[in-house]
C-alpha cells in the first residue's frame, strides 16, 4: 500500500510539473511579438527581439495571468464570466462524449469479439475500423444530414446546430463519441479475445460456467484492466475533435471562444483558453490513470 501511495504521489507530482511546463510554453509562444523575425547576416543569426525581451514579456504575462488580471471585456461581458460559462458547456460535451464513447465502445467490442469461438468477425471489425478512418467533417455532415432527414419526418429530437437546449448538445456529443467509441471497441474486442485464449477461461468452460458468467466473471474482469490502458488515449482524441465539432455545430463552447479570441487578436484570452483545455486534458488523464490503478487493478497485485 505504501509503495502504491508513493507511486501515485510521484505520478501526480510529475503530471503537475509537465502541466506547468506546458502552460509556460504556451505563454512563452504567445508572448513572441508578431513582428518577430530572424535573419542571417555576416554568418550570424540576428533576431528582431532578444531572448531576454521575450522571457521578460513571458514572465510579465504569467504574473498577470496568475494574479487573475483578465479584465478585458468581450462583447460587454467580463472575460472570466465568459470563460466559466463556456467551460461548463464544453465540460458537458467532453464528459458526455467520453462516457458515451466508453459505453458504446465496450458494447460494440463485446459484439465484435469472437467470444472464444473460431468463427470469423472480419465484417464486425470492419464496421469498427471504417468510422475510425472517416474524417470528422464527414461524420458531422452525415449526422447533420440525418438530423435534417429526421426533422422532415417530424422527429425533432436532434438540432442541427446552435446552443441553449439539451437537444442542441445531442449531436455534438454523438459526433465527439464516435471516434473514441471505435477505438475502445477495437481495444475491447482484442482484449476479450486474448482473455478467451487464457487457460483459466478454458477451465471455467470446463467447469460448466454459463457463457454470461464466463464473459462477466472471468473475461471482462481481466479485459477491463487492458481496456483502461486505452482510456488515456481517447482523452487526446476527443480534445482534438472538440474544435471542429463545436465549430461545425455552432456550439458556443471553449473551442469556439478560442477562435473568437483569435479573430479579435486577444492573445491573453487565447492563452487562458489553451491552458484551460490543457488542464482539462491533464485532469481527465489523471482520472483515467487513477481508475486504472485503483478500480481495475487489485491493490494486492500492485503490492508485489
Amino acid at each position, binding site marked *: 500500500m505504501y509503495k502504491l501511495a508513493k507511486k501515485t504521489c510521484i505520478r501526480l507530482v510529475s503530471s503537475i510539473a509537465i502541466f506547468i511546463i506546458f502552460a509556460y510554453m504556451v505563454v512563452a509562444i504567445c508572448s513572441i511579438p508578431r513582428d518577430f523575425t530572424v535573419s542571417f547576416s555576416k554568418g550570424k543569426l540576428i533576431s528582431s527581439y532578444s531572448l531576454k525581451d521575450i522571457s521578460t514579456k513571458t514572465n510579465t504575462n504569467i504574473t498577470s495571468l496568475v494574479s487573475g488580471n483578465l479584465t478585458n471585456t468581450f462583447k460587454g461581458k467580463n472575460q472570466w464570466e465568459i470563460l466559466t460559462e463556456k467551460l461548463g458547456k464544453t465540460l458537458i460535451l467532453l464528459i458526455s462524449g467520453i462516457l458515451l464513447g466508453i459505453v458504446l465502445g465496450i458494447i460494440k467490442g463485446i459484439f465484435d469479439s469472437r467470444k472464444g469461438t473460431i468463427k470469423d468477425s472480419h465484417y464486425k471489425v470492419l464496421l469498427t475500423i471504417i468510422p475510425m478512418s472517416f474524417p470528422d467533417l464527414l461524420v458531422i455532415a452525415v449526422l447533420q444530414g440525418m438530423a435534417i432527414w429526421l426533422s422532415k419526418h417530424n422527429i425533432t429530437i436532434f438540432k442541427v446546430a446552435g446552443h441553449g437546449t439539451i437537444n442542441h448538445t445531442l449531436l455534438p456529443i454523438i459526433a465527439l463519441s464516435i471516434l473514441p467509441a471505435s477505438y475502445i471497441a477495437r481495444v475491447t474486442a482484442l482484449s476479450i479475445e486474448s482473455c478467451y485464449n487464457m487457460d483459466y477461461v478454458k*477451465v471455467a468452460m470446463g467447469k*460448466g460456467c454459463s457463457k454470461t458468467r464466463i464473459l462477466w466473471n472471468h473475461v471482462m474482469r481481466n479485459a477491463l484492466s487492458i481496456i483502461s490502458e486505452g482510456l488515456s488515449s481517447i482523452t487526446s482524441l476527443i480534445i482534438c475533435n472538440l474544435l471542429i465539432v463545436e465549430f461545425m455545430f455552432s456550439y458556443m463552447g471553449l473551442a469556439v471562444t478560442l477562435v473568437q479570441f483569435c479573430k479579435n487578436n486577444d492573445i491573453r484570452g487565447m492563452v487562458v483558453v489553451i491552458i484551460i483545455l490543457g488542464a482539462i486534458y491533464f485532469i481527465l488523464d489523471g482520472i483515467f490513470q487513477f481508475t486504472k490503478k485503483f478500480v481495475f487493478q487489485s491493490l494486492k497485485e500492485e503490492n508485489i
Partner: protein
Amino acid sequence: MNNIIEVRNLVKQFELTSKLGLQTHCVKAVNGVSFDVPEGETLGLVGESGCGKTTTGKLILRLVKPTSGEIYLEGKDINKISKKEMRRIRKDIQVVFQNPYAALDPKMTVADILSEPLSIHRIVFKYDYDKEVKRLLNLVGLSEKDAKKFPHEFSGGQRQRIGIARAIATRPKFIICDEPVSALDVSVQSQILNLLNDLQKELKVSYLFIAHGLNVIRHMSDKVGVMYLGKIVEIGRVEDIFNNPMHPYTKVLLNSAPIPDPTIIRERQAIKGEVPSPITPPSGCSFHPRCNIAMEICKNKSPELIKINEGHKAACHFCSAE
C-alpha cells in the same frame, strides 16, 4: 472393472482458412483415437509435441467439438447430449492444465476460485462454502489462510495445488491432467505427482495423464498410450509398454529417455528426422520416414492397431501376437 471413459474412433480435423475465408488445408490433429479408462485407474498419453495429446484431452472435455467419433462417460455418449445436460455432466470431468501461471484467474482470490465450481454445481450449501474451501486447501497441502490470497502470491507448485483443489472441488470421476508438472521445477514435480497419486487413492478418481516425459508416465500410469501424428500407435499396460515395447516409435522413445544410473551404458538409437507436418502427413504408416525398419508396404498401407496380447496393441505391419 467398469470403464469410466470410453473413446471410440475420435477424429478432429482443423480447417485452415486464408484471410479471404477460403479453406486452404486440413489438419487431422486427432485421427481415429480409441481407448478406455477404467474406474480409479490412470491412462498415460505420451508422444512428441503436436502429436494430438492435448487436443484429445480438449475433445473429451468438449472444449473442442470432434469431427467424428464417440466419447462415452459411464456409457453415455457426451457428443450426443444437450448443452444443458453437458453443463451438468462437466461436474464429473475436470482438468488440470500445464501452466499453473495461466490456469488461475488473476483477479480472483483462492476462495473465489474454489467456491465457483461449488456454486455452479451446488456441491454444498452456500453457508458451507468457507468450510469446503478450507477442506479442499487442506487436502492439497495448503493452509486455510491461503484462501484470501490472490494467485500471484503463490509459487508455481502452490498454484498447481490450487488448480488440483479446484479440479477435485466438484468431486469428479475423471480428471484430465494435461502435462501438470512440465512447467514446474524438478524438485516440485514429485510433490505434485505424489499428491495426484494420493488423491486418486483417496477419491477413487480416474486420470488421463498427458505428458512428454516417460519417467513421469511410468510413475503415474496403469495403462499407457503412445501417440504419433494424431494416432495411437501402441497402447497397453505400463509394464507391457516399458518392458516389451513392440512399435518402433515406442522403442526409440524409450531408448532416448535418460536412465538415472550413470553405470548403465546403453546403445543409443537416435530417432531420425523431424516430426512430419500434420498438414501433409506421409502416406501409409505416418512413421515410415523416420522408421529404421520401414519396408515398401509401410509407404503404401496404413497399419491397423493389432492385438499383441491381452490389453496390448500396436500399429505396425511387423508386430505380431506372441
